[in-house]
């Protein structure tokens, strides 16, 4: 089985979110970048396939040279090889189109993406990629097993879950549950050393087919300070929630 894991290079959650150039660009100054958490769950599941069923795992990122440390980390965790499509990602459709080219060239059986990235929260690349390839697609995936040419998947739905079956090739939008947090791997020294010599192939972008662009960023309005209510005066809390906040 050939697996492609698509990873995004995103600011760590604890990063300060600031903008520059008259609020038209994200300020990367002092920001620590990581593998997008939803993607890392999928990467870990792919490594399990490799260890238990003998899969070959390639990671791919659409990004500039600055994303290579993040890609190397994925190699250190256990991916066999990596591809970087040399382009600045500005739109989900553009990224999906570049990834579709990678999939067509590589002949992958299973493509695992995170269901959404933590920076732009678009949640569109996996579905668009599947549609462009006309592959089957399962989103919000919290479990996957593959036997022969068939996958059994569990998808989270509002208020429950469902079980699905799909033939390969298949695109999956993964999230926590596809593996659990405790299953995530911290690269060990051997992994880090071997990652240095694994192939990281740079491919040029095939085009720049965008359908959206961000024109401006805004920060939320500053929040007023919390109103503290004494534990001995909870009638006041009920009153505030009813008359002031109007939520009960």
């Amino acid at each position, binding site marked *: 089985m050939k697996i492609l894991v698509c990873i995004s290079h995103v600011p760590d959650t604890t990063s300060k979110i600031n903008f520059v150039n008259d609020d038209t660009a994200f300020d990367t100054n002092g920001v620590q970048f990581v593998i997008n958490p939803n993607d890392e769950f999928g990467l870990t599941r792919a490594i399990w396939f490799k260890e238990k069923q003998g899969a070959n795992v390639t990671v791919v990122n659409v990004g500039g040279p600055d994303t290579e440390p993040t890609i190397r980390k994925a190699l250190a965790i256990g991916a066999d090889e990596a591809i970087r499509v040399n382009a600045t990602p500005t739109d989900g459709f553009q990224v999906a189109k570049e990834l579709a080219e990678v999939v067509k060239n590589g002949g992958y059986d299973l493509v695992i993406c995170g269901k959404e990235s933590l920076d732009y929260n678009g949640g569109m690349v996996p*579905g668009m990629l599947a549609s462009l390839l006309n592959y089957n697609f*399962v989103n919000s995936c919290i479990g996957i097993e593959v036997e022969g040419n068939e996958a059994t998947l569990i998808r989270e*739905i509002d208020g429950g879950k469902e079980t699905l*079956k799909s033939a390969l090739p298949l695109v999956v939008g993964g999230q*926590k549950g596809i593996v659990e947090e405790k299953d995530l791997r911290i690269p060990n020294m051997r992994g880090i050393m071997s990652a240095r010599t694994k192939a990281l192939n740079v491919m040029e972008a095939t085009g720049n087919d965008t359908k959206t662009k961000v024109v401006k960023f805004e920060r939320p309005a500053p929040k007023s300070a919390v109103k*503290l209510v004494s534990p001995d005066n909870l009638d006041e809390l009920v009153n505030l929630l009813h008359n002031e906040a109007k939520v*009960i």
Partner: protein
Amino acid sequence: MSVLIYAESNEGKFKKTTLELASYAKKVAESLGTTVTAVTVNTEDVSELGKYGVDKILKVSNNQLDKFNAKAYADVIKQAAEKEGAKVVAVTSTTNSLYAAPIVAVNLNAGYASNVVALPVSTSPFQVKRNAFSNKAFDVTEITSDVKVLALAKNSFGVVEASGAAATEDFAPALNDSDFAVKVENVEKVTGKVTIADAEIVVSGGRGLKGPENWGMIEELADVLGAATACSKPVSDLDWRPHSEHVGQTGKPVASNLYIAVGISGAIQHIAGINASKVKVVINNDPEAPFFKVADYGVVGDAFEVVPKLIEKLKAFKANN
């Protein structure tokens, strides 16, 4: 060139998020000088939509669509959009709608903006404000394609009643076998319980509750308020509560009207997941807990004393209101 919405229903009833979407679409249609068409799937009584601004309903009845299937539903939405010549196609932010929306966008060669939180900033060029960076910022996204697909963030616009009734028309889109290539084998859904996705109020417990045996008061508080119960990540990691209750960045997102956090310190990953909630109440015995910085109302005190008292006060309030 109407605005098309996919009006999702659950067990024959439209969800509040669908009515919110209809209200939103009405305003967008007005600014574009056009009308709203809704496409419904296997929903018997669709009349309610007219009260929220929908002018026309394309009613699809097809038992192949009894179980949600993203590709097939996306095909239905695409064909409805083409029939109506829709330039704007909008969906809610339910798990199912967000599953179908990117497929719809590719099928219509359209740009797509999710997490939209307000009416378009401008309709020419077409620009919308959306949540980004896990609710820590907004961006204004311009959709440059001819057809635009939007997903409206839950609880961002509100439900607005309008006068009028919608004209209903049966619609039978042509579906093919490849639409059903992913087979739904089994659906497990909790019934008779408020889900985190639909809840107006969410009551959430953290490690400060000391153990799963203490969740009775959280459930009782939720019961009194008609709320869903949730928990922080450490609580689900410790298996005190099911993983499906975990809310936060890697758990379920919450965008309720009221979020009550009991014994949750407020790690940044937790806040990222619940920050779209309108009003946040924190009950914690540590006045330094970071959650107080983002909360609207706070009670510094022992949860084991505060929560039972609050339940009594709320019961008295509910009895009189």
